């Protein structure tokens, strides 16, 4: 069933694909956050932007992943850029929505208190509103991370690395071992990332411990 000797011989390659998978996921989330965060701030500042922004990110989210990558190929080719652009687009809806919801969830009287005590707007955002919004933002980040880890397997089809390569190898060779390795590793990666984000949240929000529902 499993050819352990194949795994042994290809350990370096498997590790490289795993690292690339992590790398693509990480960059997609980073870029996604870099776009969603200012967009969310703008949508809170000018509420009229919220509907259109949500609609736009929502429409992008509904485009089937493979179709989106193929659409991008004429512009960016079979490149890392193509997969990163695609992956980033899929994180936007979740990140945008959760950042907005998180910041909107900061109680009115807390925002009033920080104004009344003499916070500047930026300091209020960084030291009061963001920490309080963190649980909701992190919830979005966790979903976005897991979704992206799943999607990265698809980018192998446009010639990029990641654990999806193992699936392609398995299918072309009619050989189950790489399929199983890819399957197990992608699930393990998703679980590990989700747990570590949960751990980061736990460390960063000591005030929430013991009253979590």
């Amino acid at each position: 069933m499993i050819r352990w000797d194949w795994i042994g011989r290809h350990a370096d390659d498997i590790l490289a694909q795993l690292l690339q998978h992590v790398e693509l996921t990480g960059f997609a989330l980073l870029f996604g956050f870099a776009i969603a965060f200012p967009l969310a701030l703008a949508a809170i500042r000018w509420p009229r932007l919220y509907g259109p922004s949500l609609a736009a990110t929502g429409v992008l989210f509904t485009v089937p992943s493979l179709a989106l990558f193929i659409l991008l190929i004429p512009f960016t080719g079979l490149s890392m850029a193509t997969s990163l652009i695609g992956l980033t687009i899929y994180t936007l809806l979740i990140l945008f929505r959760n950042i907005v919801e998180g910041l909107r969830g900061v109680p009115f009287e807390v925002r009033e208190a920080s104004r009344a005590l003499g916070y500047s707007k930026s300091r209020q955002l960084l030291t009061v509103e963001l920490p309080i919004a963190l649980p909701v933002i992190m919830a979005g980040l966790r979903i976005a991370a897991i979704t992206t880890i799943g999607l990265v397997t698809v980018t192998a089809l446009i010639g990029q690395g990641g654990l999806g390569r193992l699936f392609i190898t398995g299918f072309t060779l009619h050989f189950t071992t790489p399929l199983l390795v890819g399957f197990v590793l992608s699930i393990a990666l998703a679980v590990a990332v989700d747990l570590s984000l949960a751990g980061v949240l736990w460390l960063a929000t000591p005030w929430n411990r013991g009253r979590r529902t």
Partner: protein
Amino acid sequence: MIEFSSVTKRFPDGTVAVDALDLTLATGELTVLVGPSGCGKTTSLRMINRLDEASAGTIAIDGVDIRQHPVTELRRGIGYVMQHSGLFPHRTIGDNIATVPRLLGWDKKRVAARVDELIETVGLERDMAKRYPHQLSGGQQQRVGVARALAADPPIMLMDEPFAAVDPIVRKRLQDEFLALQARLGKTIVFVTHDIDEAIRLGDRIAVFGEGGRLAQFATPNELLAAPKSDFVVDFLGAEPQLKRLSLLPVSAAATIEAPLIATGATAAEATSAADTAATDWVLVVDGERRILGWHRVADYAADTARAPESFDAVVGAGDTLRAALGALVISPLGVVARVDADGRFGGLLAQSSLHRALS
């Protein structure tokens, strides 16, 4: 001194919350802004630290227009307490209290010392500094709110219905403690409430706001109750304004009447003479320390000087209010109340006429 000069606040939807307000709040006094909801009292308060900006007119603190300071600097110099404590849920009690000192860049040692001091000032336990707001009761959270407002020792405090969200028993205790604190600190306080009884209890001066953001009357609690300027103010003061005035006046403010006092073992003639002088048909018996032992009808005492006195419970302390004196008066069999000092020694006799004169 906080001076409003023809201050108007018009909101974007056209409602006028405050209409050409002229008001001068004295330094070191607790001024209460009171009125029905929508009368502009809260907006007036919020314009002082520019949480709301005046549409017209000027507000000056000690002669300086508040728009001359950068807004964050202005706010850091003014304490602010709100109805729901508005504590930062992600910071410990100690860190909440330290907010303004840290914004002002105090060094760590000074901040820590100040936090310790304030936790005691507002009557909380030291070990609460490490807890989070959600672990405290509503009353405790309000105390932290007060401590946070006091942290940088601002000369002015703005308080927006700070005790409205706690239950009546806790509210009464917080009010008492707050009055004691203010007696010690002497801050210039602007206090908003919709509760006229709270206004009367706490205020050195009361500004009553009417509908449409107009000032209906500005006076001391006693003046307000004694001479309300309009029907609106009369209505707002509610039932029994005279009883409310009595609750503002200490027993020591009322004149005493002639008291027919005798010592234990006095003769029948001494009792008759004491009663005649005071124009009564009874006498009060006191011991050698002038503590009240009870009373006799003169006729009964003349018949039997050895009889036991009737008990006399209509007694008030010098620090009680005249309202307490009135309460004692209605249960007194003789129509009089005795004032006693902290050791229970007789200090004078009050009748209904004493209360009447105190109010007129």
